[in-house]
């Protein structure tokens, strides 16, 4: 009896490890999955609303799941899913990964599907907004979010330091980087809070510095991506200016220090308008204004997010059809609640205003509409992840008080030149 019980128990335990992998047939209606980096309930509610309307008219799709992944490591998680044969059908794609995704064949071509969809108005898409997501004339991802960077300003902190507001500086034609840093230094000296924060830079996300150096006419690399631009005089001048702002004037927080504008810890921050929601309960007076002018004049920098269908998706055809529905003119207006659309006809203060009740039509006009067409997209390149790491590592020596800016930048170019020409 004893042995019989042992065998029975062991036999009962063994199947626990034999969990069979389920495999369903693909004949019936399909379930689509789309990864996003936003877990915002509002965003997901809007996406689900669009999906539900699509499913109601498309019996071949029974469900559409939105799968939010953490923003930190988003691309790594996505590629790991792809490597693990668990690719989503559709995915949001960060602008800095765009060249890798577009040029590698990882995305399904969309031009034919989109232009062939009735009422899509494909020609309404702004060429400057789709450039990053095209190869030749073929579009590989839809830039669902095309959002210029602007400067949020805490007017109370500026007033406390005896500084004019951003609106006054703009009115006087003084909205320049030099004057902004001067005001930031004054705030730091008078109140102890930080002057200006380039959000998401944090001495690591260096591509966010393009919101500064573009004002000097500098660029990370040439338009064809072959030549390093970090050792150009414009870049040296721009980063010398920033180094001085951090270590001499103390207008920007130094490395290893965090300051959140939206918590009232800094007078100004450079970021995208989608952050305006964080000011819903702000207890200070604030404004949103365009980026300050640099020595090279006025300019604009755009951050983008793309939406693509993966080549290895379980259901690429259905996914492309859903993408066309999701981004048609009618739904684009819904998406515009949170993400500035790439459609010329919808870039109006009226459309954007419904989405951003905290922002005035004047703010939207000045920061978004007037700037989106001429905006420079943040730097991106094939092999961006390696470049990203190499530039971050090579820039680290810059963030000390006694750094040799020109020397660091020259070494940076030596480090990334092989990657640029790969």
């Amino acid at each position: 009896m004893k042995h019989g019980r042992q065998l029975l128990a062991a036999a009962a335990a063994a199947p626990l490890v034999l969990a069979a992998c389920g495999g369903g047939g693909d004949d019936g209606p399909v379930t689509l999955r789309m990864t996003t980096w936003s877990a915002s309930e509002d965003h997901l509610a809007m996406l689900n609303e669009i999906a539900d309307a699509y499913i109601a008219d498309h019996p071949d799709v029974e469900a559409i799941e939105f799968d939010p992944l953490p923003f930190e490591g988003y691309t790594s998680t996505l590629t790991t899913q792809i490597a693990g044969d668990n690719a989503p059908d559709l995915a949001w794609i960060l602008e800095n990964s765009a060249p890798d995704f577009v040029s590698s064949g990882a995305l399904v071509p969309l031009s034919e599907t989109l232009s062939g969809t009735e009422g899509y108005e494909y020609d309404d898409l702004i060429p400057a907004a789709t450039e990053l997501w095209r190869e030749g004339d073929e579009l590989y991802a839809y830039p669902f979010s095309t959002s210029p960077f602007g400067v949020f300003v805490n007017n109370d902190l500026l007033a406390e330091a005896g500084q004019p507001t951003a609106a006054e500086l703009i009115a006087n034609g003084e909205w320049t980087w030099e004057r902004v840093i001067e005001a930031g230094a004054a705030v730091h000296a008078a109140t102890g809070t930080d002057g200006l924060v380039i959000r998401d830079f944090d001495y690591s996300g260096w591509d966010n510095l393009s919101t500064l150096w573009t004002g000097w006419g500098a660029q990370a690399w040439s338009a064809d991506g072959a030549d390093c631009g970090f050792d150009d005089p414009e870049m040296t001048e721009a980063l010398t200016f920033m180094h001085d702002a951090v270590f001499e004037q103390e207008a920007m927080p130094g490395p290893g220090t965090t300051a959140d504008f939206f918590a009232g810890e800094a007078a100004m921050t450079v970021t995208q308008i989608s952050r305006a929601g964080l000011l819903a309960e702000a207890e200070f007076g604030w404004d949103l204004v365009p980026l300050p002018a640099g020595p090279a004049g006025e300019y604009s920098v755009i951050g983008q997010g793309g939406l693509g269908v993966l080549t290895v998706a379980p259901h690429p055809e259905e996914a492309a059809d859903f993408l066309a529905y999701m981004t048609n003119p009618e739904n684009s207006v819904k998406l515009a609640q949170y993400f500035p659309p790439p459609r010329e006809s919808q870039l109006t203060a009226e459309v954007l205003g419904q989405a951003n009740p905290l922002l005035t039509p004047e703010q939207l006009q000045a920061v978004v509409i007037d700037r989106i067409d001429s905006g420079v997209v943040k730097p991106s390149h094939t092999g961006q992840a390696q470049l990203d790491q190499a530039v971050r590592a090579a820039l680290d020596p810059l963030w000390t008080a006694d750094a040799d800016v020109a020397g660091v930048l020259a070494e940076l170019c030596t480090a990334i030149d092989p990657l640029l020409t790969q």
Partner: protein
Amino acid sequence: MTAVKTDAPPGREQSRPGRPGWWTARRRDHLAGFLFTAPQLAGTLLFVLLPLGLMFWYSFHDWNVLAGGFTWTGGENYERLAQDPALPGVLGATAAFSVGLVALNLSLALVLAILLNQRLAGTIVFRTIFFSPVAVTLVAWTIVWRFLLQDDGGVNGLLSVFGAEGPNWLRGETTAMVSVVVVQVLKNVGLNMVLFLAALQGVPKELYEASTIDGAGAWTRFRRITMPMISPTILLTSIITVVGSLQVFAQIDVLTSGGPGTSTTVLVYYLYQNAFQFHDFGYGATLSVLLFAIVLVLTVIQWQMRRKWVVHED
């Protein structure tokens, strides 16, 4: 003479004359044993040995996830490994971290264990304090330390109370490595401390009494009695600490992301960058093979050397 040995009562065997003779109680026991170990065995096969085999297989391929390419490249990844200009720096950082961690962890654990082995008031409280970080989630522990080690963080705030100005811990190449080592030591020293404590309490008191009568001092007793008697535990703790030090990832990712520069880019972090950030799983697998080889060699060396210094191992 019968060749069949059975534990079953003779009466039962006799009552089933038609049953095959090989189905003995011993075989039934074996089968039961195999079935009970099957879940663990299947887990090891599925989640350890299979990935290990796949790792070797992948290392001979160029696998670009985005492009969907998976092509046999023979030893190309190994040639690249031999010529990788970043690798010496990565191995240097790995060695610095491992040596620093093992030396500090083992020595601190031993000192704490000796102190807490004294019959003094409050030792149980201190044992709990030193052991409690072991139970804390690694990432949570590291995130808290990241805030403490910021330029305007708690550590420098504490130093300023005493009039000292602390460095920007995570931004200097040396201080960043020291910080990562210390944060990891504080996290896990309690585990080794408990192991040492158990070993110390297992040393027979008679040995100390006899040596005291013979005129041995405290240092001689420690060197001649304590150390040899706890040497098996020193071997155990050194092996698990060395292996653990080579697998450090989360602390690096959270505290420094391998920086400043590449000063804290240890082998596992470099492997992660190549595989999961640069989408180059083939080369990532090759780096995994290197890590596997290093761990294997170090463990074999430690195991072989035990005969020279571990009591009862000669």
